[in-house]
């Protein structure tokens, strides 16, 4: 083998990069997070599989209906009527953002833009922190 020093360095760099997910995980498969739905309701505004796949699209549609068309009433496929509102409808059941929304979004690194405009709800643990922050200001 010629230039063995350079070749071996090159192969080591390749191996380190190519096996990155193997050594970064250190053999631990972190289980996917469990969601705390936070409600006794049987069904969301639509069926669970639909919500799993399309909640982001539904929310964006709601935003457009409300903000652009001034339309606030959503009739679901089951015929029930809902107020199109993230904070008054969605968050009524899913009260805890950190235990519902964030768990999935953090696990697969999705950054929804809901909270660019909406104020994230204050949750039990955070309430005291927020209070302390306010008093220190």
């Amino acid at each position, binding site marked *: 083998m010629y230039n063995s020093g350079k070749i071996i360095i090159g*192969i080591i760099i390749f*191996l380190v990069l190519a096996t990155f*997910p193997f050594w970064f995980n250190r053999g631990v*498969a972190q289980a996917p997070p469990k969601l705390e739905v936070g409600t006794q309701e049987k069904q969301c505004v639509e069926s669970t599989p639909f919500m799993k796949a399309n909640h982001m699209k539904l929310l*964006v549609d709601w935003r457009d209906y409300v903000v652009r068309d001034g339309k606030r009433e959503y009739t679901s496929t089951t015929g029930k009527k809902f107020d199109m509102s993230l904070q008054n409808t969605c968050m009524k059941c899913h009260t805890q953002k950190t235990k519902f929304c964030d768990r999935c979004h953090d*696990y697969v690194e999705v950054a929804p833009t809901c909270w660019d405009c909406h104020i994230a709800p204050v949750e039990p643990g955070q309430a005291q922190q927020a209070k302390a922050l306010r008093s220190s200001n």
Partner: protein
Amino acid sequence: MNAWSSLFASLFAVIGLVIIALLGVAPAVGLGTLFGVVIPYVAIAVFVIGIVVRILQWAKAPVPFRIPTTCGQAKSLPWIKADNLESPYNIWGVIGRMFLEVVLFRSLFRNTRAEVADGAVVRYASAKWLWLGGILFHYSLLTIVVRHIRFFVEPIPSFVALLSSADGFFEILVPTIFLTDIAFVLAASYLFFRRVFIPHMRYISLANDYFPLFLILGIGITGILMRNVWKVDLLAVKELAMGLFSFHPTVPPGIGSIFFVHLFLVSVLLAYFPFSKLLHAPGVFLSPTRNMANNNRMVRHINPWNYPVKVHTYEEYENDFREKMKEAGIPVEKE
């Protein structure tokens, strides 16, 4: 095979792979473990070991001559300005040249097109489209691979989130369209169509040119479909991927078959890599015409396969035949 038959053979091969994956994970067949665990593991092993074996094979081949391709003034007399990038005379020139080659595809950037004008005059014109398509394709591919780290590890390194947010900067549609997804498909399509529509490109295109392009396009298209059309359960997908990478493989139920098509095509690409033209990735670093300094006149290069040659000098010859030479009247150096 001629151009069209190799094109369609490659196309049908990739369509066949898609159908195999779709049939394999259909509930009636239920080979989820094969397509979700066994084939990906085999593919990763073939990819990693295959590339290392290839590099070792290349490293065993001696390069007896200095054969850098140069396109600038070599270093000679001190008052002649030497061009260290175009005709490197030391290690820094080589590093600079290799860096620009690998990172910016510099030699592709100087691509020219020859054409015969007015029946007699040969004209050369700059041709940058191949460079543009190539660089868009490769950087999109890199970005997409790095973005996929979010499915592979936990916790997710922050540069992945940064890259994803830059890539989805314009927030078009929900889920956000990634700019590199569009660039990737456009660039790969361009690289394909130039082989179809340019006659002399079509003439030299083989099945092993078309097949990886179709495979890569298939991977890109299934990926985009999975993100924006036929959604899959990302929690289950990440569970499967993390299981693979931590050697606790599982196939969680309820992942759409489009994911297995995507995974199967990626596995085929990985396993195909060490036996194909895709080896230009490690190969660019081992190209003797690029990675050598043009210093023939400064450094003596010994042929690596030189062996000790038995010589018989004139002095020894004279010692052997001195008497006979004298008898015959031939002059000798030593009496």
